[in-house]
């Protein structure tokens, strides 16, 4: 083909196209969500709101799991932090500005992540998973025990916040399926773009290097501890914001949000969608929310079914939905 004696490898345009699809898929999904209110019932829309909350939290989770290779079984802790921040601000401090709540949740989650991460990120996958589980449960116990502050098992109310300073005078459902729905979608898109930039940046590259081979990365000069800790903090911020959205939708912040099986569900979602792709976890969140809704309605033994699906997923389709689709597409691309 070439008349020179040296074969120069062709540029990896195919790979970049696939990666670009990541953010594209996510944005496409968001556009579909934006059009949903024109055709879907209020119930479906209300079901979508936890999906947005989980989607944002999972963007952060996957920075940790998919990109950096750290499996956290305590991510629900930050959901709880966000939820309780929303509760404290709206019902105890009477500060209803959604923007302020978001910022404070982010800061608080980041701070807590800094403290916990300093202890945990020295360890890799399994031990990290166990430690994050333990810390998540520590937070759960704290929420339960200090009932004078947190409301204990009864939780704390989350009142309707003001979006951009504006108050909605209609019913809660109309609020949730109207302005709040669009606000959170825009937030989702924005945070998705930010996460995209992060994963594509040199920082993201360093994280992937650490995941592939930590020893080699350290040899080349990557500061493993700092990088992992930063990833942990960023993932926590996303988790906190996701938690705020969940709490406003529910209207209540309760300790069960931080229980370790809730973290387990997050991992389930990430694997279901495919932790190897950018939009995978978000797709996993959507699939999980709809799957659980469907399964709970058709059988009382839904835990068995969900557990079975998880096992089958890990054994036969570990790349998840998005990952498998990407694999099939790339295979077809190569054959063509």
């Amino acid at each position, binding site marked *: 083909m070439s008349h020179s004696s040296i074969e120069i490898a062709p540029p990896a345009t195919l790979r970049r196209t696939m990666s670009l699809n990541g953010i594209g898929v996510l944005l496409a999904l968001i556009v579909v969500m934006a059009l949903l209110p024109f055709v879907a019932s209020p119930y479906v829309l209300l079901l979508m709101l936890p999906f947005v909350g989980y989607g944002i939290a999972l963007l952060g989770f996957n920075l940790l*799991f998919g990109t950096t290779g750290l499996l956290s079984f305590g991510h629900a802790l930050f959901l709880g932090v966000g939820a309780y921040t929303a509760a404290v601000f709206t019902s105890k401090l009477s500060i209803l500005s959604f923007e302020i709540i978001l910022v404070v949740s982010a800061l608080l989650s980041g701070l807590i992540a800094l403290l916990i991460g300093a202890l945990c990120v020295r360890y*890799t996958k399994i031990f990290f998973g166990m430690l994050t589980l333990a810390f998540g449960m*520590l937070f759960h116990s704290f929420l339960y025990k200090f009932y004078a502050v947190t409301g204990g098992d009864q939780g704390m109310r989350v009142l309707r916040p003001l979006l951009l300073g504006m108050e909605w005078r209609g019913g809660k459902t109309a609020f949730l399926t109207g302005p709040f729905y669009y606000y959170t979608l825009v937030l989702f898109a924005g945070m998705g773009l930010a996460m995209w930039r992060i994963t594509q940046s040199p920082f993201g590259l360093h994280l992937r290097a650490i995941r592939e081979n930590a020893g080699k990365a350290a040899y080349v000069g990557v500061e493993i501890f700092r990088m992992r800790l930063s990833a942990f903090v960023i993932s926590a911020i996303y988790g906190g914001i996701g938690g705020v959205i969940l709490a406003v939708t529910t209207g209540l912040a309760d300790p069960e949000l931080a229980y370790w099986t809730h973290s387990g569900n997050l991992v389930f979602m990430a694997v279901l969608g495919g932790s190897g792709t950018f939009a995978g976890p978000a797709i996993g969140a959507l699939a999980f929310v709809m799957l659980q809704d469907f399964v709970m309605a058709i059988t009382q033994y*839904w835990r068995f079914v969900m557990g079975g699906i998880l096992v089958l997923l890990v054994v036969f389709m570990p790349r998840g939905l998005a990952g498998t689709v990407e694999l099939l597409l790339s295979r077809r691309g190569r054959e063509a």
Partner: protein
Amino acid sequence: MTELLDVILGGTFHAAVLFLVAAGLQLVFGVQKIVNLACGSFYALGAYFGITAVGAAIKLGMPPALFLPLLVVAGLLVGLVGLPIERVLRTVYRRDESYQLLITFGFLLMFQDTFRYLWGATPRTMDNVYLAYGTAHFLGIRVPTYNLLVIAASLAIAAILGLFLERTRTGRIVRATAENRDMAEGLGVNASKVFALVFTVGCMLGTVGGALVVPSSAASLDMAVDLVVESFAVVVIGGLGSMRGALVGALIVGLMRALAISLMPEMEMLSVYLVVVAVLILRPAGLFGKAAV
């Protein structure tokens, strides 16, 4: 004095229970690098099955005094459930450890509903056997002999395990496979058989533990999920992969909890977490663990 002894005995009893679950966790992790989130489910399985077995045996006319050995046998039997589960796990051995953790989470969910289907939502208790061995009176306190037997059984199991791993040929093979699977295979070890053995023994530790403890308490649906947290605390404190760590960690958790209950009841669970954090800061690998895993 009697109160202190009471507290210590109570804490030791709880520690004996925790040890059995944690030992199963440690054995499986040490050899296969799998953390079994369903460890609590095996414990619950042993408890439920033990109740059924003893109930049936008593109806068939077995003398109540024999129920302890019967429970051990029942526990061992139902621990065989580990074999098919290990077969499923085998499909993901070569993959990322996180996936193994996830499969065990899936099994935990499946077990939850299996218990509900087979034994219902009502907590189950074993009748008429707890005090079959009488009560022991010494040093002013009064404790059911059964509690002492459970503590003794735990220690015996710990000793047997230790001897097995250190002194027998199979034990050495297990340890070799734990250190370096490929090398061991290269030297002719059938690693699949070893893994199957180890996982099943790990499960049996849990099921026998559950069966042994249930006469003194009860079997309920949420015990599997709750136990995971405490056993993880034990493993973190003791060090991942270490049997000695399981023993010492269980003792620490059991005694801390007992002390907290008698001195500052509100601090019960938080005291255990405090120890976990302290260990992480001061000795990150746990008391007996190898350096940063």
